[in-house]
């Protein structure tokens, strides 16, 4: 049963298992263990970002493609639901329409970008996606009658989804289910081909796999995952705006989460997203203490200023890329191996 559920891809490290179980329990019981709006917000954000980062890992870690358009798909999900609900009112039909339309749009764009630019080199794809994503961001702010411009859209949900508890469990349940689906994808024969393309493109092609097709399908799956995450996030926030879904800062956050958690390990996205969202919300408080303690010394308090938390995660990110590309999860698994597991 568990093997089926995890697609045979176990954490393979005692510490990692313990941490993952702890995160799962904490998220599953969040409304009861951590009462209060702020902590419930943190829990929902973790759930959404686990899905978002896992779908990005399918691209970056498993297929070896760098895309900067992931927030665009995240935004399409958010805006799809947001626009439908804001224009058509809080009904189930509007919700369904918004979800279907945004998934279809994402699939179309991902297919087009993939077929046009995945033939060429990784760098080209990265640059094209950056350009397209920034164009989309401009589009969202320009079409203000439709998208609410910089202010975004606030909307109401159908009656049943309105209580915080219900919407939290919808977000958590869907994110968990889709995460398991992604785990299934990367452990399928399809996922193995993706890995082989990442390791040696030329050889995979010589073995008879059409790499453009595989890459494009991976790109589409990742886009759909990101769109689903965007839908969940806007359902949770009951709001969609450029800063919550489309901004380039979120793209940087996703990169940090994937790399620090561990590229090419689905579980890394759980750890990365949890660590990052916690740092985003609670590291500042710690840094404020440290910064206050160091008052009077030149420059040091500035380095530890609460707003500079991203600096330290950036340093961690670079160190991860150089010294442990498989991130925290890779480290934990390697440590498990040495102990004879």
């Amino acid at each position: 049963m568990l093997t089926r559920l995890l697609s045979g891809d176990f954490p393979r490290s005692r510490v990692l298992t313990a941490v993952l179980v702890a995160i799962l329990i904490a998220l599953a019981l969040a409304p009861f263990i951590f009462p209060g709006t702020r902590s419930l917000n943190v829990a929902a954000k973790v759930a959404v970002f686990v899905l978002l980062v896992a779908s990005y890992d399918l691209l970056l870690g498993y297929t070896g493609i760098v895309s900067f358009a992931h927030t665009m798909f995240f935004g399409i999900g958010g805006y799809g639901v947001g626009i439908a609900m804001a224009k058509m009112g809080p009904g189930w039909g509007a919700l369904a329409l918004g979800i279907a339309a945004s998934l279809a749009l994402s699939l179309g764009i991902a297919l087009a970008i993939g077929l046009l630019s995945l033939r060429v080199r990784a760098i080209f794809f990265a640059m094209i996606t950056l350009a397209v994503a920034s164009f989309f961001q401009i589009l969202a702010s320009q079409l203000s009658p439709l998208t609410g411009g910089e202010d975004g859209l606030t909307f109401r949900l159908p009656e049943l989804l309105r209580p915080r508890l219900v919407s939290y469990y919808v977000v958590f349940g869907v994110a968990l289910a889709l995460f398991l689906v992604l785990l299934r994808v990367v452990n399928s024969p399809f996922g193995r081909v993706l890995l082989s393309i990442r390791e040696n493109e030329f050889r995979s092609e010589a073995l008879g796999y059409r790499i453009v097709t595989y890459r494009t399908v991976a790109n589409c799956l990742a886009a759909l995952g990101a769109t689903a995450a965007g839908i969940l996030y806007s359902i949770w926030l009951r709001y969609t705006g450029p800063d919550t879904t489309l901004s380039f800062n979120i793209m940087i956050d996703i990169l940090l989460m994937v790399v620090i958690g561990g590229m090419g390990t689905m579980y890394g996205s759980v750890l990365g997203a949890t660590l990052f969202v916690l740092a985003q919300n609670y590291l500042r408080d710690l840094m404020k203490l440290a910064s206050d303690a160091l008052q009077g010394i030149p420059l040091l308090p500035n380095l530890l200023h609460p707003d500079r938390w991203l600096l330290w995660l950036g340093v961690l990110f670079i160190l991860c890329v150089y010294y442990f590309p498989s991130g925290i999860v890779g480290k934990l698994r390697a440590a498990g191996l040495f102990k004879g597991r």
Partner: protein
Amino acid sequence: MKTRIKTDLIPLALIPAIALVALPLVGSAPTWVTLTVAGLAMGMMIFMMASGLTLVFGLMDVMNFAHGIFISVGAYGAATVLTRMTRQMEAGSLASDLSAMVPAVLAAIALAALLGWFFERVLIRPVYGDHLKQILVTMGGLIVFEQLIHVVWGPDIIPLPRPGAITGAFIIGEAAIERYRVLAVIVGLAVFAAMWLLLNRTRIGLLVRAGVENPEMVESLGYRIKRLFVGVFVAGSGLAGLGGAMWGMYQEQVTAQMGMQVLVVIFIVVIIGGLGSVGGCFVGAMLVGLLANYTGYLAPKLALGSNILLMVLVLLWRPRGLYPIGKA
């Protein structure tokens, strides 16, 4: 590169073609002159910022996603010097204005070049040949240095005053031409000319061009290609710093994110021009600058997306850019 530019003039001819097509659309000649000069000035500044990136890619096969940080740092360097020079700035004569601006620009170049040297040494050298890691590491560098700018210069937007002699406009007939834009065109042309001469008339330029075509061969002939790499990277960063200082003075303010904001346009220019091609980068920058200004006047809603549209059209016409370089 020289022979290519001579044999293939079609992309170059696009620049006057776009300008001529825009003339009847804009309607009035003075407005058209103003827009054209503005477009050329914008293109020149973009070229200064983008040329280093494309050259580094052509020679070293490194795409530096942190290139924007050199632009920001250059602008901050210039702002730091200029805000200290209030006495020269207020004197009002051209000479005293220049005595403030020249050191400011030099500081911008030096600071950006120094940072470029550090980047090449510490961040990029370990990941030559690995595109995935290059993109990730340079993104990491971007995050860290953007935050470090906040640490050193504070989180607020810094106003960057323009010296008096280059504010205001020349009035020729009915056309108003901002002085600063003329200056930008002059500096941009000077940079392009200097680069062209350096690449086509000197021994170093010969080595760089040969390195773009075939680095292994250059190395096996006994030249240290790594040293060439460092030199080009530092020069490219310095140019980005110069471009950043000019861009900052153009916008009259400096933020840590400004480099990242321009970077998207720079990427588009580099893609349009053909990855690695300096001539293509120049043509691409001019096209983007002109088109942005014309559409900004004719259809403001379209303006921000015009460069994407241009990129798509160019890639449909020439999938590898205007002047494709051998190996891309």
